[in-house]
């Protein structure tokens, strides 16, 4: 991993004027603070029409008849289109991956054909001059339904008596995975204590501030489709639009400017977005669709909703002997395309027990169909559940044998010297830092003082709790995640860097900006590896016509993978530009370097020629260069991790909170995180990723829940009834770092986007239990932990 351009002993990151590790402000922020963003919701095109959808009011119903006459008569209505009609333009899809063995699903259409399988599934599309008109007309569409029995309870979805949602599939089982490592039964038998409990995680959803949005523009003359799309993965969507509309990929351009929040919500294929694109093709004009908030609640993917029966064994001196879990999750009527809805359960199996040196681990996960909205990957996929289960068990076990929760972790976390090593589930760890992270966390939170304060408060009748959650996080995924399963989801990413005619550099990258700061990070990397001040770098993202092929933003890959590609591209362009400069200066390229936008003597740093001058000569006076010499002022490099399937990161969180035992209300007092994402390119951006992630995790722990009734009706699909974290309830969040770079890349960065969400729910749950334990309360293993749940645990309500 040594940069050959550098003296021995220095790494790539020691380049002069390095921006690596500096908290520079993001280049796109001034624009956004002035209301000058361009979100898809803002896009207006000539001749643009608006789509609205008639959606099924039933969780499961046969569509017997559709009458669109009255709707079609509304002035301003352009088209009213049924599923069968749209199916002539857009083929259905099936969300399966071959490496998740046995995973099955049924064909899903852009607009339901014959049958609606969840409340909110689009049944008819209406296109009109304005959205308001389209909604008016949608109300006039008459749909006659025959209600079918709704399968809503995951627990009984596999029972013989339960109807099978897709009879062709034979049963309601989407996917099942089992794992048996070491000797679980023997280990449990030999344990001094075994804790067994059931964890329940509520279904929740992303609630991106800007709802999903697409403006599709099929140009019949050019035979090209342009889709302005609020997505995390433009190239993936290019492939999917092409595939299902019968186009070649080069006929499709996906443009993604500003996106009002994603978090995994906007990395999937949504039926109404596919319908919007198909409608544009059908009508030969731009069509816009922006989900309203109610539509978001019933159609944005939901996540979590797992029931995990779990056991842990422990010896009386605090050694963990075994973990065992049985996970059940209901994912709606379809496995979501193209990433599938088997991944979250699969991740839980992979991740439970992951931080600990415990060889005995047995797991089963079952994923079942049901007539509710679809579930799929949302920020930190599986991690919050695996972490809450693991860490919940660890603290319950520690309490049972009477040792401190910090002590039990010191005894069992994989030693920092043990790497490289693997986990019982078969994960491979290059190098983690659990103990260093724990030490740092304990120091940051002043643990002993906090325990003393807790005891003092307790004496005054104030019940505070401290809870921990150690975690590992999957980042920088290789092709092992999706590619090997047959999905055309790129794990590699590319970057192209070119010198402009004034000596500035433009970087085109395949990763996307969702607000996490990719543009800043890519700019820092390129400025450093090429050798210019940051204000001489412009980054272009989110346009399949103008960026190298790449995967976009998911699984915390933008900095680690996109950043490394940009690093290599910057280096390559530096070599090219130095070749030009050397020929101008009649010097050896090796004796030169680029620093602060000038070509300098590598040894002395003395300026030889400015980049603007190099550019001027190369572009406008190439006749003055030696015969046969051709300047190459654009370089492209690609990168994909090869040595490790994933770059695991690690960290630990702690929550400090107070429980009002009369009302059941939880007040968050403090939250600490120590995480290790390898090389930190921009500390401020990493910290803010962590903080934002923590608050999403807190939402899951305390507030957020998509509540369904037994008929499959969502009861709280609006922001008044579905609670999200707001400023007043959230604590300040202190973030610390341990830095263990990955050796798989020169920059050594791993991902940081999901660590906050991974650990926060478990830490909060453990803190609540820590507060209530001396009161003889039952342990809480249910999320969200509402006041009602607290009072129940205290025996104060049913």
């Amino acid at each position, binding site marked *: 991993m040594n940069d050959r351009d550098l003296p021995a002993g220095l790494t790539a990151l020691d380049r002069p004027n390095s921006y690596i590790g500096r908290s520079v402000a993001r280049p796109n*922020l001034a624009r956004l603070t002035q209301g000058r963003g361009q979100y898809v919701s803002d896009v207006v095109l000539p001749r643009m029409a608006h789509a609205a959808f008639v959606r099924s009011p039933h969780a499961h119903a046969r569509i017997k008849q559709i009458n669109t006459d009255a709707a079609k008569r509304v002035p301003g209505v352009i088209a009213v289109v049924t599923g069968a009609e749209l199916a002539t333009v857009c083929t259905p899809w099936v969300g399966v991956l071959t490496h998740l063995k046995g995973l099955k699903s049924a064909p899903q259409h852009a607009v339901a054909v014959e049958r609606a399988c969840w409340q909110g599934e689009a049944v008819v599309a209406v296109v009109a001059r304005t959205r308001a008109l389209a909604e008016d007309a949608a109300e006039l569409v008459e749909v006659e339904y025959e209600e079918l029995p709704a399968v809503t309870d995951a627990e009984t979805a596999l029972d013989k008596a339960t109807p099978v949602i897709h009879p062709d599939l034979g049963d309601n089982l989407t996917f099942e995975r089992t794992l048996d490592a070491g000797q679980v039964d023997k280990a449990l038998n030999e344990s001094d204590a075994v804790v067994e409990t059931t964890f329940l995680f509520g279904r929740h959803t992303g609630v991106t501030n*800007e709802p999903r949005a697409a403006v599709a523009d099929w140009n019949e003359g050019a035979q090209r489709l342009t889709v302005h799309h609020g997505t995390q993965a433009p190239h993936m969507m290019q492939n999917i639009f092409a595939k299902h509309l019968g186009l070649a990929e080069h006929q499709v351009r996906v443009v993604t400017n500003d996106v009002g929040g994603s978090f995994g919500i906007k990395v999937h294929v949504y039926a109404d977005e596919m319908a919007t694109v198909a409608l544009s093709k059908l009508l030969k004009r731009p069509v816009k669709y922006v989900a309203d908030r109610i539509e978001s609640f019933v159609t944005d993917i939901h996540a979590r909703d797992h029931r995990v029966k779990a056991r842990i064994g422990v010896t009386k001196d605090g050694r963990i002997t075994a973990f065992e879990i049985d996970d059940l999750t209901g994912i709606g009527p379809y496995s979501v395309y193209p990433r599938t809805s088997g991944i979250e359960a699969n991740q839980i199996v992979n991740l439970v027990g992951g931080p600990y040196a415990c060889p005995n681990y047995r797991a089963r996960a079952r994923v079942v169909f049901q007539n509710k909205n679809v579930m799929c990957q949302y920020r930190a996929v599986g991690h919050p559940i695996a972490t809450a289960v693991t860490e919940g068990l660890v603290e319950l076990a520690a309490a049972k044998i009477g040792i401190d929760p910090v002590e039990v972790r010191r005894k069992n976390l994989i030693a920092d010297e043990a790497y490289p090593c693997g986990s019982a589930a078969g994960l491979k760890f290059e190098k983690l830092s659990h103990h260093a992270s724990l030490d740092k966390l304990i120091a940051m939170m002043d643990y002993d003082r906090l325990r003393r304060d807790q005891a003092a408060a307790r004496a005054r009748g104030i019940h505070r709790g401290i809870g921990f959650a150690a975690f590992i996080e999957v980042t920088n995924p290789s092709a092992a995640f999706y590619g090997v399963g047959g999905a055309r989801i790129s794990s590699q990413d590319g970057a192209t860097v070119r010198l402009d005619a004034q000596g500035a550099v433009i970087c085109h990258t395949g990763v996307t900006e969702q607000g996490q700061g990719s543009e800043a990070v890519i700019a820092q990397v390129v400025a450093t590896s090429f050798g210019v001040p940051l204000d001489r770098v412009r980054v272009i993202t989110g346009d399949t016509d103008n960026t190298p092929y790449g995967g976009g933003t998911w699984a915390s890959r933008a900095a680690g993978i996109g950043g490394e590609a940009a690093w290599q591209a910057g280096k390559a362009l530096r070599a090219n530009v130095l070749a030009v400069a050397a020929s101008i200066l009649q010097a050896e390229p090796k004796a030169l370097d680029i620093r602060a936008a000038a070509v300098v003597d590598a040894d002395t740093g003395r300026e030889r020629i400015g980049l603007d001058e190099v550019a001027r000569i190369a572009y406008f006076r190439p006749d003055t260069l030696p015969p046969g010499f051709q300047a190459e002022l654009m370089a492209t490099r690609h990168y994909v991790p090869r040595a490790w399937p994933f770059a695991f990161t690690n960290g630990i969180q702690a929550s400090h909170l107070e429980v009002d035992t009369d009302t059941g209300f939880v007040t968050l007092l403090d939250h600490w995180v120590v995480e290790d994402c390898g090389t930190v390119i921009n500390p401020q951006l990493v910290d803010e990723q962590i903080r934002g992630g923590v608050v999403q995790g807190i939402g899951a722990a305390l507030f957020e829940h998509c509540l369904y009734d037994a008929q499959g009706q969502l009861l709280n699909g*609006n922001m008044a009834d579905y609670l999200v974290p707001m400023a007043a309830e959230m604590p300040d969040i202190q973030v610390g770092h341990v830095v263990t770079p990955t050796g798989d890349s020169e920059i050594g960065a791993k991902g940081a986007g999901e660590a906050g969400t991974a650990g926060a729910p478990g830490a909060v749950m453990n803190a609540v239990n820590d507060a209530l334990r001396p009161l003889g309360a039952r342990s809480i293993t249910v999320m969200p932990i509402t006041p009602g749940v607290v009072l129940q645990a205290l025996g104060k309500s049913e």
Partner: protein
Amino acid sequence: MTAHEITLTVNGEEVREAVEPRTTLVDFLRDTLGLTGSHVGCEHGVCGACSVRLDGAVVRGCLTLAVQCDGHKVETIEGASDSGAIADLQEAFRTRNALQCGYCTPAMLLTAAELLAGGGVPSRAAIREHLSGNYCRCTGYHAIIDAVEAVARVRAGATS
């Protein structure tokens, strides 16, 4: 639906337009006037993304009808930016990374500016309380509180 003619001042410019009675202020600003800096997050008064100034007070653009603004003064983030009145706050948001996707930001800035206009240095709890009607899914709020607090301190220092 019959349209009503309304006359109002938007960011200092007089505007005369015909609007349907059901058109909300935020839709009017975005769709009719092209002022897309005001955002729509929920259309039912909870997220605060649509907040704008009506006669100087911050209101929900999705709970206000355009026809109600006949004869009144509306200011949006575009106007507040161009006037330079909240430049210090915008700069603090930028340097503190108090926005990620930026969707909540225009409304968050106007709401924070309202608090800061009261003068003094509000406590972090008071800042949190004042901003608690503005949903931000990205930041976790901590950085926003930092930015607002920092501006309050600077402004207090400058006036004292």
